[in-house]
């Protein structure tokens, strides 16, 4: 099989690490070798959290600039910031609900225009799947399921070597029992959203 390289970027507290864990577990169920690497020292301090997930035979668990096959962004400006990981063949999936960094509030930066952001990403990559995952997460029952909504969209691309069933099974075994139904619902919503986009 070929190596598939996925980068997930998020803001601390958005549940990036759990999303990676679910994908890792799904890969285990699929019998696909998987390696992950994450930087989470500042996760609780409002900083950026980045995970690299490598499916397949490669030995490296890091993804260099331009080497990502897939980029999943939990926050639109963070998706934009991570575009250096992409090449013209990369598929990008992003949430469109912004969490502006504090620097914007104190006038030290301007939040990018969301339409322009999408146009730029679409022009530079193979495809962009962009939607408001926060609204879908709330509709699924909790904003905390944003990570699983986005996983749904990721699975729907068909570019990962794991099936929706394997991700569902991973959700059952890796998320808190009280949240399993909510998360399964969130996964469906994310998959449906990606089908529509």
């Amino acid at each position, binding site marked *: 099989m070929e190596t598939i390289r996925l980068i997930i970027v998020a803001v601390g507290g958005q549940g990036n690490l759990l999303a990676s864990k679910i994908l890792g577990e799904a890969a285990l169920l699929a019998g696909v070798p998987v390696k992950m690497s994450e930087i989470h020292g500042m996760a609780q301090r409002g900083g950026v959290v980045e995970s690299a997930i490598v499916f397949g035979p490669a030995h490296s668990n890091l993804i260099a600039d*331009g080497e990502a096959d897939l980029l999943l962004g939990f926050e639109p400006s963070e998706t934009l910031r991570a575009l250096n990981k992409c090449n013209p063949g990369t598929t990008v999936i992003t949430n469109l609900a912004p969490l502006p960094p504090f620097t914007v509030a104190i006038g030290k930066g301007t939040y990018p225009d969301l339409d322009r952001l999408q146009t730029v990403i679409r022009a530079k990559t193979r495809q962009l799947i962009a939607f408001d995952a926060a609204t879908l997460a709330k509709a699924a029952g909790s904003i905390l399921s944003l990570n699983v909504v986005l996983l749904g969209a990721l699975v729907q691309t068909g570019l990962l070597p794991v099936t929706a069933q394997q991700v569902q099974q991973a959700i059952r075994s890796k998320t808190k029992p009280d949240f399993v139904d909510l998360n399964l619902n969130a996964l469906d919503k994310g998959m449906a959203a990606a089908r529509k986009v």
Partner: protein
Amino acid sequence: MHPLLAIESSQSILLLGNEAIARGALEAGVAFATAYPGTPSSEIALQFFQISRESDLYFEYSANEKVALEMAAGAAMCGLRAMTSMKHVGLNVAADALMTLAYTGVNGALVLVVADDPFMFSSQNEQDTRWYGKLSGLPILEPSTVAEAKEMTLSAFDLSESLKLPVLLRTTTRINHASGMVTMGPLRERIVKGAFEKDPMSYVCIPAVSRELHPKLLDKMGRAAAMADESPWNRIEGDGRWGIVCNGVSYGYVSDAIHELGAADRFKVLRVGFSHPFPEILTHWFLEGCEKVLVAEEGEPYLQEAVRNCAHRNGMMLPIHGKGEGLFSRLYEFDPTTVKRVISSYFHLPFTASASIRTDDLPEVPARPPNLCPGCPHRAAYAAVREVFGDEAIYPTDIGCYTLGLLPPLRMGDFLIAMGAGIGTAGGFARATGRKVVAFIGDSTFFHSGLSPLASAVYNNHDFMVVILDNGTTGMTGHQPHPGVDLRHLNLERAPVSIEAAVKGLGVENLLTVNPFKYRKTVAAVRELARHPGVSVLIARAPCPLYERTLPHYRKRRPFRVNAAKCRGHKVCLSKLACPAFFAAEGQVGIDPDRCTGCALCAQLCPENAIMPARDKEAAR
């Protein structure tokens, strides 16, 4: 049952590198574990902390890395299998004990996990722990993958026991915080009771004893070198005429690169996993038949020097390069493309990097620096001290979440080097300039290494203020306890050591304790202490809001909101506090009720009294 205990032998699961190391130690029958937390090592200790609560494994968070190592050394002297874990700079603290522990050796086993942080994701420097192998004479193992981290940990215990020496397991962030598939082995039985046989002429390192022990250490190093030559952790792959020597995560990058360059059959790779003492004979054998050699290692040219020494000793003239112009850097971490590019250029292989997209024409993305959390008491203490001294004072600071106070608008941090050095350097700044100096230190850091510089400052009649930012936990690394923390809610009997009593006991007469969220009182306390020359201490005590949420007495406080009718847009709240619960939309300041903790600091600073408790979440919106 803890998952690392529950999972059965021969099962494969996905583990974090740090979990794999803890599992390896359990499989080795570790009975005694200690640590002072530090990124990226902290999750190792977390596993032991949890497991110690449901088994006879002894674990403690010690006050600092030196104490942690000494605790483990004491247990290992009595025949137990012990482990202590720390980040790379922690080994500097523990080094004094380690250097002579290498002379006495240990009777059981002692494995010291030291986690390096190339690129300094969460560290103040990127020192390379492998030099400590040479400095101390102790063996070093370095895993290349998560799975290997578990196996090597197990092997490190056996190595330690057979050499009767502490063994260093050196990792990097990309091992500690990577996840990979790991296959479980059987759990060896823990032997938790040891015995100590007195032998002062072997263990009490007075000069006469140490003169006998140093040659014994050299003898053990000789044996260790022979083991390194035979070790399965050092292996040669391929039989090409181009040599690559590598270690740690670089091994993965090298393996991928030579395949992706389509030239794997032209290479011979020496993976060094048992790196000190260096496997000389194996390396000589490897170099035979090589035309030229590239050394791929993050950090310092440790392997490069060793390989060149080996070639020199054997009269070999082949080119051996690693660090240098157009080759590898001593700075930061590697990535797969960097390694591929250097291999291609050194061996003249064609290589085109993936067509990265242009990013210079992207819309600008606002910076997202880490920030003190909403409701963080450090923000309140900093704001009060800044109100009194502004930019007049010099602010030496220390290691912890509160280091983030250096960012604008707080700008409270002028010098930072090491744990405890805020207080230590304060006297130097004050003596040299005659200016007001206010040193900041956290509660955990105070117990780690703030006590001795404070005693020294009092005795030597220095003139500065210390603010102890006491949030009741070790915040930055994930809320580990320290000697000042009450753990009764976890049914753990620990009598918390009083910071006030410690400060007074060290001879400080001017001491005040405040709740920093009472802003005016805090400002008054700073002014009061500033009136007295000499060493004064302000304890700013309020719990870390993230930690507080985990405590049984926690009750969520009502969030605050901005009353738009009263707000005149002075934005003092934003410009002085930079609390991330605030946002600005269409010129109007607002507070995100989901992020506001209700600390009320901003409400005390608003000149129009426009910030008030929300009636409920909806009203706040």
